[in-house]
């Protein structure tokens, strides 16, 4: 049973149920973002022979709360020459963009915000909001560094959407569905039904698909990394070049919004990658709930697997960030247009050929 139906059965009102249903991702995103900031600091610290936050709560676990509470108290500066409307809308729009993506991500078999048949296309479309927000921030700040960051970011995100979309088309050819929920549900029973292992296709096709699915997975992971501006693709906010990129001029809660959006976005892309290739909320081994005959346990287990896959990929993103240097703008573009897109196109053609045969 979906959570939405559960709300309807309680309130007998679609509006209230839909409202409550749409709030659930917030209850996940905000604690996750706080946790991810803390995780990032701890992960980086331990990679660098340090300890990271230690003084705020045991092992600094309250650090993110202190940060947020402090950012709430900070003065909200809008520069005199800034374009105030754009400057104020930008953080909200950026957050809305990444929040909207959560609408079609299946958290478990019992919860998906909106079970759209065009889910995958919707994601590609809606993440454009983030670009708009970043461009507004860059322009509205009236700061050259911000503008630089914003223009770089827009160019980067728009470019890297192409390989992402190409890989998504490859998946559509195999699954014949754009619905993320169906996609996740179908990759069931064990990990060899995941798309990365050829999915739930029958016969020799499955074996033939495996290498190309791996290639697709690597391409989409690299391009999502670029879409969320993480190292080695973090040139829009490259600290050593552009100070803080498009959010250079933002202070207080508006900056916190960008921060929140960044970490939410990290999770969103990880979740999408795992939903497409790694079975989404499906367990790799089967469910304790079905063994013990406790049907209510299954969605909870599924949520656990979903969250752990997402967090694992977020962790990999952090790992890369604290290991790799950063690319230059032209190299970044060259990487996209000269390598990823041709490979993705060829991959698409080969997969199409396999599926036709």
């Amino acid at each position, binding site marked *: 049973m979906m959570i939405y139906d559960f709300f309807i059965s309680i309130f007998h009102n679609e509006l209230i149920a839909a409202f409550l249903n749409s709030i659930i991702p917030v209850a996940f995103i905000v604690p996750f973002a706080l946790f991810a900031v803390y995780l990032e*600091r701890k992960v980086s*610290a331990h990679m*660098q*022979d*340090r*300890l*990271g*936050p*230690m*003084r*705020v709560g045991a092992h*600094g676990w*309250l*650090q993110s*709360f*202190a*940060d947020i*509470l*402090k950012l*709430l*108290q*900070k*003065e*909200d*500066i809008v520069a005199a020459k800034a374009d105030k409307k754009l400057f104020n809308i930008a953080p909200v729009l950026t957050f809305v963009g990444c929040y909207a993506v959560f609408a079609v991500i299946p958290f478990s078999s019992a919860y998906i915000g909106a079970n759209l048949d065009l889910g995958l296309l919707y994601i590609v479309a809606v993440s454009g909001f983030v670009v708009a927000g970043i461009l507004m921030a860059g322009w509205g700040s009236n700061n050259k560094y911000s503008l630089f960051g914003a223009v770089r970011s827009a160019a980067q995100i728009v470019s890297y959407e192409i390989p992402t979309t190409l890989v998504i088309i490859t998946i559509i050819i195999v699954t014949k569905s754009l619905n993320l929920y169906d996609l996740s549900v179908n990759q069931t029973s064990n990990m060899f039904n995941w798309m990365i292992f050829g999915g739930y296709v029958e016969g020799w096709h499955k074996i033939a698909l495996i290498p190309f699915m791996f290639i697709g997975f690597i391409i989409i992971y690299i391009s999502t990394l670029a879409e969320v501006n993480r190292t080695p693709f973090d040139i829009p906010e490259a*600290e050593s070049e552009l*100070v*803080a990129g498009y*959010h*250079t*001029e*933002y*202070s*207080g809660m508006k*900056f916190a919004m960008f921060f929140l959006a960044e970490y939410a976005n990290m999770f969103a892309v990880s979740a999408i990658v795992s939903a497409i290739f790694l079975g989404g909320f499906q367990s790799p081994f089967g469910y304790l709930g079905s063994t013990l005959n406790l049907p209510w346990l299954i969605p909870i287990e599924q949520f656990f697997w979903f969250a752990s896959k997402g967090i694992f990929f977020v962790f990999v993103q952090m790992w890369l960030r604290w290991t790799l240097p950063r690319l230059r703008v032209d190299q970044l573009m060259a990487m996209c247009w000269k390598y990823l897109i041709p490979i993705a196109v060829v991959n698409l053609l080969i997969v199409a050929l396999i599926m036709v045969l």
Partner: protein
Amino acid sequence: MGLLDKQFSDDNIILAKTEDLMNWARLSSLWQVGFGLACCAIEMMATSASHWDFDRFGVIPRPSPRQSDIIIISGTVTLKMAIRVKRLYEQIPDPKYVISMGSCSNCGGPYWEHGYHVLKGVDRVIPVDVYVPGCPPRPEALLEGLLKLQEKIRNETMVRKAVV
């Protein structure tokens, strides 16, 4: 500093608890402007590096002053730089704090007599909360300065004291 500071005329338990929470948040997450001036900046970097690790206290360098809470004036402030230091301080949103690190920014240090281009003490242009002596101060001294600043923040209040 801050909008609410010294805005209330009477003290009560709710105010006291809110105050404690606010001050706790402020003192636990002092983001620093990533900004070094001279020799002391190297010791400041050493303090952020693995051996001493500023991050334990929640201090991380932010490249943009808009997102920072403290500025550590780490080194000699020259006349040419003083104008920029002042501008930088003005760019930090309230509540903001200043640590003056090293003799040079405290009082001109070894350049006090013949330094025709050295500002004798950064407190001639911006208000300073904590002075850390030394030339350059050891990382431990800077950490001590930070703890002193935290102590100071802990005692900030929203209550306006009656003028005697």
